[in-house]
C-alpha cells in the first residue's frame, strides 16, 4: 500500500546555531482528517524533535497554536491539510511579533497591552457576595457577549497592517476586550478605559481595514468593536460640549 504524503515547509529560527531564520522541509504521511498541528506533531515525534511550537487543547479554544499557514494567520489545530493538499504547506511564526525560536513568538507586548485596557469589572463600590448577583438580563448579556469570546490567539494582530506598521497600536483584540467591559451593565469603568482607548495609538490608529474580523476564529468582530468605540467616544465628546452636565441641572 503506497502511503500518501504531504510536504511541510517549516520556518526555523535557532539563534544558537544561525543568526537568520531558514526553512526545513519535511514529508509526513497525509490523511484527509489531519490538521496542520497533526503534521507538526508528526515531525516532532518521528523526524525532528528540535522543532519548537506551542499547542495544547487541539480544539480551538486555548489560543496557543496560531501560526502563519500558507501566508495567512490560522489556528493550526483547526486548519486541515486537505485545504492545501497535494500542494506543500508553508508554516511560519505569526507575523508582526518577534520570534523567540522556530514557530514560537514573543507575546510580551500583547500581554502588557491586555492589562493596560483594565479588563476587569470596575465599580465605585462592590456589594458583598452575600447580597447576591447583579441582575443582568439575557439582552444585557448579549450586548457584550460577542466581545467576550476572544481566546487571545493573536491572529488579528498578525492580520492587522496598522499593528505591523505601528507597534504602539493597542490592536484589535485588546480594544475589543475594552469594549466588552465598557458594554457590560455591571461595569462603571468606561471613563478610566477611555483614557487608554481614546488616544492616538488606541482606537484612532485603526484605519478600518477589517482584516482582524476576517481572520478571527471566534467571530469576535474586533473591527466592529473599534468602530463602535469610536462612535461612542465621539458621541460622548460631543455631548460633553453641548451638554456639559449631561442634561442634569
Amino acid at each position, binding site marked *: 500500500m503506497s502511503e500518501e504524503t504531504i510536504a511541510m515547509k517549516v520556518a526555523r529560527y535557532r539563534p544558537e546555531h544561525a543568526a537568520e531564520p531558514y526553512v526545513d522541509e519535511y514529508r509526513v504521511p497525509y490523511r484527509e482528517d489531519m490538521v496542520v498541528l497533526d503534521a507538526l506533531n508528526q515531525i516532532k515525534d518521528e523526524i525532528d524533535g528540535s522543532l519548537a511550537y506551542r499547542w495544547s487543547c487541539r*480544539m480551538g479554544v486555548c489560543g*496557543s497554536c496560531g501560526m502563519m499557514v500558507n501566508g495567512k494567520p490560522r489556528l493550526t489545530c483547526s486548519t486541515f491539510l486537505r485545504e492545501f493538499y497535494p500542494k506543500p504547506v508553508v508554516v511560519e511564526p505569526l507575523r508582526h511579533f518577534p520570534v523567540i525560536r522556530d514557530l514560537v513568538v514573543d507575546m510580551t507586548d500583547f500581554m502588557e497591552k491586555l492589562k493596560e485596557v483594565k479588563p476587569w469589572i470596575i465599580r465605585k463600590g462592590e456589594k458583598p457576595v452575600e447580597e447576591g448577583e447583579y441582575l443582568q438580563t439575557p439582552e444585557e448579556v448579549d450586548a457584550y457577549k460577542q466581545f467576550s469570546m476572544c481566546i487571545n490567539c493573536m491572529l488579528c494582530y498578525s492580520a492587522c497592517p496598522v499593528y505591523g506598521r505601528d507597534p504602539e497600536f493597542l490592536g484589535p483584540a485588546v480594544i475589543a476586550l475594552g469594549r466588552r467591559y465598557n458594554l457590560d451593565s455591571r461595569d462603571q469603568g468606561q471613563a478610566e478605559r477611555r483614557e487608554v482607548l481614546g488616544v492616538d495609538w488606541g482606537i484612532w490608529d485603526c484605519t478600518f481595514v477589517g482584516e482582524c474580523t476576517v481572520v478571527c476564529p471566534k467571530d469576535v468582530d474586533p473591527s466592529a468593536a473599534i468602530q463602535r468605540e469610536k462612535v461612542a467616544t465621539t458621541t460622548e465628546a460631543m455631548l460633553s460640549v453641548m451638554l456639559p452636565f449631561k442634561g442634569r441641572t
Partner: protein
Amino acid sequence: MQTFAHDIVIVGGGGAGLRAAIAAAETSDALSIAVVSKVYPMRSHTVSAEGGAAAAMGPDDSFDLHAFDTIRGSDFLADQEAVEAFVADCPSEIIQLEHWGCPWNREPDGRIAVRTFGGMSVNRTVFAADKTGFHMLHTLFQTSLKYESIVRYDEFFVTKLLVEDGRCAGVAAIDLRDSEVRCITAKAVILCTGGAGRIFSFTTNGAIKTGDGMALAYRAGVPLKDMEFVQYHPTGLPGTGILMTEASRGEGGYLTNREGKRFLEEYIPSKMELGPRDILSRAIMQEIEKGRAFDGPYGQYVHLDVSHLGEKLIDEKLPFVRELARNFVGIDPVHEPIPVRPVVHYMMGGIDTDLAGRTRLPGLYAAGEAACVSMNGANRLGSNSLSECLVFGARSGRQAAEDALGASQTDERPVEKLAQAEQARLVATYLEKERGRERISAIRRELQAAMERGAGVFRTEESLKQAVEEVRELRERYRDVSLDDRDRAFNTELVAALELENMLDVAETVVRSGLERLESRGSHTRRDHPDRDDERFLKHSLAFTTPEGPRIEYGDVSITRWPPAERKY
C-alpha cells in the same frame, strides 16, 4: 543563579491556581504572590471545560440535595466533610465570579440560570453557554491582572519542590526562554497543575495535562490518593477525543445505538441520558461488546443525537458542540447525530490534602484536579469540578496566606543550593547527556497504549498486572532517553522529557492502586471483582513513592450524615 523570593508560590494558572492567587491577594496586601505556569494562564486546560459549574442555587435545590447527589455519585467514597464544605461554598463562589464579570447565562429576570446535568437530581449547573470553563478562566485571569501583588512567571516549568528542613520552601523552575533554572522561594507553595489525562492515548485533555504537580508532590513524599479512579466521559469524538459536553444530554440529547435504540433503557432507565458518567461509559462499552455499535476508523462508537432540540436551542445553549462537530468531524448536529465513545476525562485521585488544601508536607498545598480532598470519591459528577477549582482554590489560597503571614523569614541559601543541584541534574541528564537510544515519543506512545489496555473502563487482575510491568519497563527505558534538541532557547523537547517523567510516575500509581483494589466502585470496574466491598475497601488508597515503585496504604473515609448504602438510581 537567579533567585526570586515570594510569600506564596502557586504552580499552575488555571481555574484553581488563579482563584487561589486572588484569594491570597485579598487576604492581605502585604503578601507577594507568584503564579508560576508552564503556559500563559489563559492556555490552561480549564479553558476547555464546557458544560457548567454546580451550585445549589435553583429554587428547588438545597444543601442536602447537592451533598447527597455528590456522595451517591462518588459511590460513597467521597469524604462527607469535604463534600459539605464544598457544597456550602459553591453558591458564594459562583456569585463572586459573577461580580468579577463572568457572563453566566441568565433567566429573563436577570438572575443566574441553572441547567440539568448528569447525576444531579435538580437543575444545579450554572453555565456560560457551553464554554463555561473558557469564560471562567478568562474572567479569573483578567481579574487577577488588577492585583499588583500577583506576579506571574509565564512559561516557567517547575521541575522540583525545594524541601528544606522538612518544609516546602520553594520551587526550582526552568525559564523556557533560556532553559536555566530559577530558584523561587516561598513560605507556602500551592500546586494547581490539573490532572494527567495525557497518560492515556484517548483523552479529552489538552497536551499540557501531564500530572506535573502530582508527580512533584509524590516525589517529595506526599501520597497520591485514590489514583485508580479515572473518569471516562461517555461522549468524546472518536479519533481526537474532543469532548462533546454532558450539557448536550442535559439539554435533552439522546444516546442511540446501531439499532436506533436509546439503549440506556437497559442500563439505567430511571435516569437515561442523565445518569452519572461511570455508569453511562460502561453502558456504551457494553453496547460495543454486544455488537450494537457503529464501526469507524477510530474504533466503535454510538450516536449522540441532539437534532430534535432544534437549531435555536442548539445555537443558544450548545454553540460550541455545533462548532466542534462541524469543524472536526464535518457533522452538523442540527441535522445529524454525532459519533461518540467513552474517553478519559478526569482524575478523581490526586495529591492528598485536607479541607484547607494542606498536604502532610508543611508549606505544601494543592487544589483543583491536581488535589484529592476528596469530594469526588470514586466518580465525580459533571459540573462539580469547575466549582471545586473555585471552592478549594479559594480555601487553599486563604489558608496559605494566613500561614505565610504567620511564618518567619527563611534562610534562602540552603534552598538556593537545592536549586543549583537541580540545574546540574537537568544539564547532566538531558542537555549534555551523550546520545541515548530512546525517543520520547516512542515511550510516551507505549505508555499511553499500556494504560488504555490495562486501566480502561473495564479492568482485571491480568490487565492491571501487565500494565504495572509495562510501566516499570518503560521507566527503565526512560533512563536511556535522548533529546534531538540541545538548544537553550525554548526547548520544548526538554519540557516533553520532563513531562514524560511525570507521566510515568503518575501512571504507575494509577495501575498499582488499581491492581490492589479488589472491588468495583464508581469508575473502577474490576471484571474479576464485580461487587463493591465496603468491608475491605471503603477506604482511600494512598500511594507513597519507594525505589521499588508505589507502596499502597489505606486511609479512612469521613462519614457524617449519609451512611454508605447501595448506589441506586
